[in-house]
């Protein structure tokens, strides 16, 4: 398991390759990439700043991945989440899960994303034409996390 919080961008292809290297029992890799969109809540977005709670963020992400590992038969999981200033089309987050079969890797990958959205201390501040604003939490994210209970 690896969890990284960083300002730098990441190379999805290289990360997936590193994650599966050396384990010929892996038959499945499910992954998710979150990107900055140029629009949110109907307003055009010029960029955003991602704030986090250093120390707790890494701890929370590791706990989420551990839950996934306890729940599904997977081999490994990787979470990379960026912080700092980002602009539209920039990558925000990568979650990748390896396993023998696809069902477990899909479920674990989606579970990690859903929990990350509601449990990991990150906050987005958007730049729009009307100025900067903190992004509000979405009820749909709460619901997405609740369905795994």
């Amino acid at each position, binding site marked *: 398991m690896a969890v990284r919080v960083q300002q730098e961008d990441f190379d999805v292809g290289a990360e997936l390759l590193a994650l599966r290297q050396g384990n010929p029992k892996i038959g499945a890799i499910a992954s998710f990439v*979150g990107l900055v969109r140029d629009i949110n809540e109907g307003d055009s977005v010029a960029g955003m700043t*991602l*704030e*986090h*709670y250093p*120390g*707790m963020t890494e*701890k*929370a992400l590791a706990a989420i991945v551990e839950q996934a590992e306890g729940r599904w038969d997977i081999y490994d999981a990787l979470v990379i*989440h960026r912080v700092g200033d980002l602009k539209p089309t920039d990558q*925000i*987050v990568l979650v990748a899960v390896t396993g023998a079969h696809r069902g477990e890797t899909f479920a674990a990958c989606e579970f990690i*994303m859903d929990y*990350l*959205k*509601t*449990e*990991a*201390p*990150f*906050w*987005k*501040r958007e730049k729009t034409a009307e100025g900067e604003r*903190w*992004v*509000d*939490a*979405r009820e749909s994210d709460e619901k997405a996390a609740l369905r795994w209970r």
Partner: protein
Amino acid sequence: MLTVLYFARLRDALGVSSERVGLPADVSDVAGLVAWLRLRGGVWEDELAPGRAFRVAVNQDMADAASGIKDGDEIAIFPPVTGG
């Protein structure tokens, strides 16, 4: 002493990112600490009012109203998270 951290919109609204406070004598859990902070009035009363959406972590673990607090703890108060 407690370390109390504030993040994101709450930090901006309260105007403080971190403070060190003595553990108030009658405070032993998250609910007690939040009630004690509300006594500061003004934005503290508004932002930490019952029904407002905020989260509290104790020593970097998500906590709830009943979570215990003891001397030396790191408490963080912040809005619902919006990463990912």
